[in-house]
Structure formats: structure tokens, C-alpha cells
């Protein structure tokens, strides 16, 4: 488990992170969401030890991270880059060895990853000769080549074509399924919504919300219900404790002040005929995000 505790960072007099605390659980895909400049990259750099915080700590299973622990992290910085004139496979072996892998392991992992990411044929090409999409794949391989136990990925999906997004998603969920804590940031909220178990929302250097995706949805769900019946739904307007937002023949959206009022609507609908659907409206991640950072 990765634990970020009370991290504060200042650049000069400007405070870019204020008392940032959240956890990334074992095997949890944790989405890290925030506007540009909210502090995501700074937080990730502090987790990786590239920057040092002014106060606060990063803990692994309750123990402060040391420099040698950081070799067990897989990191994909927001600013992408590899040595342009170095061959893809050579570069991956080099990075794996810098992380402490023995040469044989480094080569084996490199071959495995290139295979999984569909880059085997490009193994002995220089990075600069790769297409942009393949450079992205190589970048992901660079973050994974040393079999990391923790993943911290800054915008891993930006610049990927839909096919590559699927590949990367399956690789990441594979890591989480093996029990690795995975923290990733993304602007593509639909991907985060599909992928993440937990969510951390940051704005202006402060954590505004964090927890499991479902719990956050529960917390932010409105008292709004949808109903679809066999007959006309116009009668709902006359129900007590209920405000109709939208009514269109057999479909209606209404807000109810209490659970009892919404249940009363359901009972009456069943009494009147068939009910095809009745559900509380779940807010999308985008809605929660807007609400939280507002």
C-alpha cells in the first residue's frame, strides 16, 4: 500500500500542494484527476523522489520510502522522452539494469514487453525512427520493463490511438490484478470511469475528494429518479413530495424529497401496469468532478 501523508510543496512563496494525503491500495487502480496545474505532476514527482516535499512523507506499508525502494516503482512522466538515437530494446535493457535487474532478466523482460505491446519488430530501430504511437508504446514499456511493484503513471493514455489505449488498459489492469498499487492521472474522464477502482480528485493543490468510485458516486448522487412504464407517466405530477423534471409519454425524470415519496411513485406505477425501468440517476465522473472542484 502506498500512503501519501500530509505532503506540502512550495515553489518560492507559492504553495502548490497543501497537506495532500491519500492512499493507493494494493491491487487498486486509482485514478488521479484534476485540472491542469492542480498539482498532479508535482504529487507524482514527490512520490517518485524526483522532487522533495517541504513537509509530509510517502510511505510503503507504513514505512517511509527510501531511495532503493524507488527502484521498485514504475514511473511514466507526463513529459515523454527516451534517448532518440538509442535502439528500443537496448534502451529498455539499460533502464531495467539501472533499476537493478541482472542482465539476463533485463533482456528477458524487454523481449516479453515488446511482444505484449506489439513492438517486437521495432526492437532494433532507434526511438527517433518510430511513429508517434510506437514511441508511446516504447515509453510505456520503459515504465514496466523492470517488473515494478508500484505503478505511477502521469497521463498514460494521452496521445494513444484507441487500439493502443485498449492494450495499455489491459496491461495496467493486469498489474493491478497481480496486487500492485496503480496510480494514474488522466484528463480522459471516460477512461478513468471505466478503469479505476478508487478516485482521488485534486484542485488547487488540495485533495477535494478521495475514496472508492462507487462510494463517491453514492455520495454525490442526486435524489433524482428515472422511470419507464407501459402507459403514460403524466400522473406523477400529482404525486406528493415529488417534482417532475422531465416527462415524455412513458418516460419521466423526477426528484423526490424523501425515499418514501419515490417508493410511493414506484408502488403506484406497478399498480397502474408494467414498469420497465426504475432507477436512481448515477452521476457521471464528469459531473462529480465538476461538483467537487467547483
Amino acid at each position, binding site marked *: 500500500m502506498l500512503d501519501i501523508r500530509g505532503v506540502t510543496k512550495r515553489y518560492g512563496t507559492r504553495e502548490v500542494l497543501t497537506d495532500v494525503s491519500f492512499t493507493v491500495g494494493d491491487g487498486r487502480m486509482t485514478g488521479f484527476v484534476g485540472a491542469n496545474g492542480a498539482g498532479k505532476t508535482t504529487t507524482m514527482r514527490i512520490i517518485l523522489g*524526483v522532487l522533495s516535499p517541504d513537509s509530509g512523507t510517502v510511505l510503503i506499508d507504513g514505512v517511509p520510502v527510501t531511495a532503493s525502494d524507488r527502484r521498485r516503482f514504475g514511473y511514466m512522466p507526463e513529459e515523454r*522522452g*527516451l534517448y532518440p538515437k538509442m535502439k528500443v530494446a537496448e534502451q529498455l535493457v539499460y533502464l531495467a539494469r539501472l*533499476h537493478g535487474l541482472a542482465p539476463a532478466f533485463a533482456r528477458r523482460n524487454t523481449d516479453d514487453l515488446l511482444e505484449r505491446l506489439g513492438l517486437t519488430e521495432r526492437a532494433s530501430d532507434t526511438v527517433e525512427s518510430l511513429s508517434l504511437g510506437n514511441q508511446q508504446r516504447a515509453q510505456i514499456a520503459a515504465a514496466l520493463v523492470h*517488473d515494478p511493484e508500484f505503478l505511477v503513471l502521469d497521463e498514460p493514455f494521452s496521445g494513444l490511438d484507441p487500439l493502443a489505449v485498449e492494450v495499455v488498459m489491459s496491461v495496467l489492469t493486469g498489474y493491478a490484478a497481480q496486487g500492485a498499487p496503480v496510480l494514474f492521472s488522466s484528463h480522459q474522464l471516460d477512461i478513468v470511469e471505466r478503469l479505476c477502482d478508487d478516485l482521488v480528485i485534486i484542485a488547487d493543490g488540495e485533495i477535494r475528494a478521495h475514496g472508492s468510485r462507487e462510494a463517491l458516486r453514492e455520495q454525490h448522487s442526486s435524489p433524482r429518479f428515472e422511470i419507464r412504464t407501459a402507459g403514460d407517466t403524466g400522473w406523477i405530477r400529482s404525486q406528493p413530495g415529488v417534482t417532475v423534471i422531465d416527462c415524455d409519454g412513458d418516460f419521466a425524470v423526477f426528484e423526490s424529497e424523501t425515499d418514501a415519496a419515490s417508493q410511493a411513485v414506484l408502488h403506484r406505477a406497478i399498480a397502474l401496469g408494467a414498469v420497465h425501468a426504475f432507477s436512481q440517476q448515477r452521476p457521471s465522473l464528469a459531473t462529480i468532478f465538476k461538483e467537487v472542484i467547483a
Partner: protein
Amino acid sequence: MSNVTRPLHTAPTFAQSVWLVSNREITARLRSKSFLIATGILLLISVASVIVGSLASQNESLTKVAVVGTATSVVEQTNAFDIVESDTVTGAEALVRDGTVDAAVVPSDNADSLLGITVIALDSAPLDVLGTLSVGPDVKILQPASQNGFLAYLVAIGFGIIFLMSATTFGATIAQSVVEEKQTRIVEILMSTISVRALLAGKVLGNSLMAFGQIVSIGLLVSIGLAVTGQRLLLADVGPAIIWFAVFFAFGFVLLAALYAATASMVSRQEDVGSATSPVLFLVMIPYFMVVFFNDNPLVLAIMSYVPFSAPVGMPVRIFLGQAEWWEPVLSLVVLALSTMVVILIGSRIYSNALLRMGARVSLRDALKG
């Protein structure tokens, strides 16, 4: 996790990280065509200069002199001339006129003549002939110069040029490689993996090894060249200076390499490398120009041989000229080693503070403050 069963992630030591980084630097350099070509040219020039020097000294031909009658024995005694015998003075004069000989030496008409000979030349007194044939007073030299001035000049310039070329070539290489990592942003991955000090040390070590290797090959080639072309006397004189030069270069280059890396880390684009590292370039050029202008000034040379930036050139030149006591190179080397350590400490501070700052050039004050 799949890797729990495997003994991976045994964190490499500082030394292992440094070695990995320096290996990559060396491999990258050896793969670069421009580096190989430049090295080849440098080696060719050094060999060529030895060979040309040896040819020039062998072809030094004797002055041709025509002699007539009794003058012959006088001229033959000197062993300094290529002698053409002529039967008559008129004949000898003709040889002077048509340029076959540089001068003619004939018996003197004047009975009072001290030497009994007359030198005939075309349009001016032939000083070399006169010098050889003249009778001079005894000369006592109080402080004999251990090396002839022109040779000393050549040796000084040779050290200067080699230092200048190697230092600028490899300095620029380090600077470019620092900015390459910064510009391509791979530096962030590197920084999250190994310490910034290990990264800097690896870069400096890798490039210093290459530069040192180049210097040693030049030294060996020149020494072998001198031996093969029969210039053993010169080799005996220059040899110790070459060895000291290599030793001083090893330290001096590390100092410059750290400076190049630190100054380059303050910019984010290859286009800015030149202007950022130009202060270091001046430091490298100082010793070169100092030896060119002051190689016959013992005081300036003595000062140069202790200033860390010029010591790698200044001290070997003084050793060659026989001006240095045995302890002087040792003391100067200590000064150089200490300043190298200080520069590495300051340089690594600048380097680690400036590496993540993209965009505009980082000011020196910010880089030092962090």
C-alpha cells in the same frame, strides 16, 4: 505479484549505477560517426607532425661552396659544407653567378689576410659561411638553456592544441548529452531511478575515460613515431613531459567535464548549449593562448603551472624546459585535485537543481540556491 518469487530489484550500488551510465556514454560515443572521424583525424595529425618533423630534420642539406686551390683544406676542416672544387677563381665566380653554389672560397690576394682566404658571394655576405669560417672568441655561457627555443615553442603549442581540442570536443559532448537528456525529458525517469550524483558522475567518468584514452593514444603514437623515425634524443626529452601531461589531463579534464555538465544543465535546448558553456570555453582557451604568448617567460609559466585550468599545459611545458623542481608537479597536482573536488561538489549542486527546470535558462543564483 509475479516478481515476488524472484530476487529482482537488488538496488545497484552507487558505483554500479555510475558504471552503467558511463558505459552508455561510451557506447553512444563509439557509435557516433562524427566522433570516430574526428578522433581519426586528430591521431593522423599527431602522427603526421612527427613524420614531417623527422623528414625536415633529415633533409637539412649542407650549403654548397666552391673552393679553389689552398682554400680547399680550410673549408674541408669545417666539415660543414658541400664542396665543389674549381680550378680557377673565374670558374668559381661563374659557379656563384649561375647559382650552382651559394659562395666560393678562394685563396686571398691580400698578404695581410688573417685567414688567407676570400669569400665570394653573389649579392650579400653569406652569414652562415662567414660564421663557420670566422675565428671567434671563446664563449662561456652561464645558464645554458636546456632546450632550444624553437623546439620548446613547438612542444608548448603541441600540448596546448591537444588540450584545447580534447577538452572542447569532449566538453561539448558532455554538454550535449546533458541537454539531450533534459530536452527529451528522459532525465525524469533517470532521476526517479538513480541519484543525480550517480548520473553526473557516470557522465563525467564515461567522457573522461574517452578523452583520456584519446590523449594516451596520441601520446603513444607520438612516442612510437619519435622512436621509429630515429628521433630518440627528442623522445628522451619529451617523454616525461608527455607522461605528466597525461596525468594532469586526467584531473584537469574531470574538472572541465563537471563544469560543462553543470553549465549545460541550466538550459533546455541544444541551441542554447553554446552560449551557456562559453564561459567554460574561455577557461579552456586561456592555457592555450598563454603558452603561445608566454612560453619564454618563466614567471608566467610558473604561475600557469599552478592555476588549475592551465596546469595541465603549463606544468608539462615547464618539466620539458627543465624549469620545474621535482616536487612542483606533485604540489600542482594536489592543487588541481582539490579544486576538481570543489568544482564537482558545486557542479553537482547546480546540476541537480537545474535538471528539472524546463524552458527559460536557469540563472546561476537559482541553480546554486535550489
